[in-house]
């Protein structure tokens, strides 16, 4: 958490002469802090629900003080079945904390749930597509940045416009195409799809970053006997590292968070966590502590990445249009 305390660098240019009055500052601070606290209530509530027992999670009035429980986490990672008292008594003592918690509700742990495999799918698909889209993006961005490409503006616009399509509209033909090609519900299919969506962002952002590297660096290297490709690899790529990392994190976050394609095109084998978490159910409806626990675990990587990214956030969300 302490890393968040560092103010974002790009966001702290101070006005010099026209300084707001102390009263204006205090008023502004009060409103902003109030908003920030209010906006974080749902997130705090997710965190609290994750460590509540199911009865506590649905009590009225909502409980702020409660006995923490690991039932939510256990329910997230296991599937359980209800058993008769006689059968439960005949069993050996519970081996794990989750066994113990299930016994208290007259249940036994049957197997592991699908949460971990779905989480793993999210990881593989997010990292795979990021690697591919940034790899392709950095090459295209370099070409657009340094060479005279006929119809450059049109091509750049074409690349961007592919991102404007409503996912549902593209999902119909992709669904049919993947069925023909045997890519339905496969990780490879999802990696290709997310790469195609992300490559537009990658090209636009990376072109901005590469534009900022002076051409003289490569020209000097080429005078020293490097070929164009060597100069690209040994001069431009190292110079663009920050930009590449920032772009990669943006692609990663998109692929990690994506829901529309995932829910329409995957159902088992390649299903990611976002379509899975909402359908975690317990006995008699949604198991909210388990959902909250699954949500929290899923959000933590993004919280870390947001902190890492904060200096490039603005640039990323505006496709490089605003650079400060």
């Amino acid at each position: 958490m302490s890393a968040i305390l560092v103010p974002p660098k790009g966001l702290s240019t101070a006005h010099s002469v026209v300084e707001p009055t102390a009263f204006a500052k205090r008023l502004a601070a009060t409103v902003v802090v109030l908003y920030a606290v209010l906006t974080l209530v749902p997130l705090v509530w997710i965190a609290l629900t994750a460590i509540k027992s199911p009865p506590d999670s649905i009590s009225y009035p909502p409980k702020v003080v409660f006995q923490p429980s690991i039932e939510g986490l256990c329910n997230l990672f296991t599937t359980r079945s209800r058993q008769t008292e006689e059968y439960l008594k005949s069993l050996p003592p519970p081996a794990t904390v989750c066994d113990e918690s299930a016994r208290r509700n007259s249940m036994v742990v049957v197997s592991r749930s699908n949460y971990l495999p779905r989480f793993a799918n999210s990881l593989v698909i997010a990292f795979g597509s990021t690697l591919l889209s940034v790899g392709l993006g950095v090459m295209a961005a370099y070409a657009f940045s340094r060479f005279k490409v006929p119809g450059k503006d049109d091509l750049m616009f074409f690349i961007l416009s592919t991102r404007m399509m409503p996912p549902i509209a593209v999902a119909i033909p992709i669904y049919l195409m993947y069925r023909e090609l045997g890519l339905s519900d496969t990780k490879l299919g999802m990696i290709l799809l997310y790469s195609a969506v992300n490559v537009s962002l990658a090209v636009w952002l990376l072109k901005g970053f590469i534009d900022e590297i002076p051409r003289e660096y490569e020209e000097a290297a080429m005078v020293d006997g490097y070929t164009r490709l060597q100069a690209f690899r040994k001069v431009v790529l190292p110079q663009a590292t920050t930009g590449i990392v920032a772009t990669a994190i943006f692609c990663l976050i998109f692929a990690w968070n994506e829901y529309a394609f995932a829910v329409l095109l995957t159902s088992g084998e390649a299903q990611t966590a976002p379509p899975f978490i909402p359908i975690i159910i317990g006995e008699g409806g949604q198991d909210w502590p388990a959902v909250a626990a699954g949500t929290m675990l899923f959000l933590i990587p993004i919280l870390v990445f947001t902190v890492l990214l904060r200096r490039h956030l603005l640039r990323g969300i505006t496709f490089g249009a605003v650079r400060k």
Partner: protein
Amino acid sequence: MMAERAARSTPAPLALRMRGLSDRAIAWLFIAPTMLLLLAINIFPLIWTVRLSFTNFRANRPNAEIVGVGIDHYVAILTDPDVWGPMQATAHFLFWTILLQTLIGFTLAYLIDRKFRGHGFWTTLILIPMMLSPAVVGNFWAFLYQPQIGLFNYIVSFATGIAPSSFEMLGSVKLAPWSIIIVDTWMWTPYVMLICLAGLRSIPDYIYEAAEVDRASAWRQFWSITLPMVLPFIMLAVLFRGIENFKMFDLVNLLTNGGPGSTTEVVSITLKREAFEKWRTGYSSALAIILFVAVFGLANIYVKALNAVKNR
């Protein structure tokens, strides 16, 4: 060999170009893979959609005979009064989310720009919701909206005295559209705020200093300096939000799934119902194409505005 000899006997810049691949070759070699991927995953399917939109094809009956129906689907969609329901739902959603997010976002940015102590820390906290997965977090809002046990109803009842079980955010025809607007505003206000903040920070101090010298009132400074100079940034934010929310799917799908009835059925939900529930692939392809043309139009305007902001 030839190339080597030629390279040695030509002046330096030309020689550079002769060694290894030519710049032209590299340019195409570097751009081609991206283009191929986009052609395969975006353009080819799009052309396929266009073709399907003129047929009665149903994806759940792949072996049935495909009959061409001409532009029947397009005529049906554009003359069907029922299609205006989703359009209106989308317009209502777009209008209110953009209005609220712009007002709150700009206000917050303006206040943060007063540079009170610790503003960087609070800014980072405010930004968190927009980075999270709309589906995963939006799903949790369904829990907050539960009558009686939900935190949202409880807080509203605490603040206003209305009984928490007397209203249902997701189940009532009147409130359901607002339940989605609230979550979207909660999520994306930071986005507008961040862009507005960049706009405010881009105004050079000397303009305000000159205004001070001219004894312009604070009010006057706001209307004739601050607002006009931030306006392009606000427009940019509005366009981005507009395009994104035109495509809105995840929050609505998880919170109300278009219900109750079809009060919150935005166009993406209609498309999902037609394509993946009723399996009217031909009809939904035509609808998808109409939507795509609309978004493409928006995208065009957006790129122009983007360039205008860039070239300032």
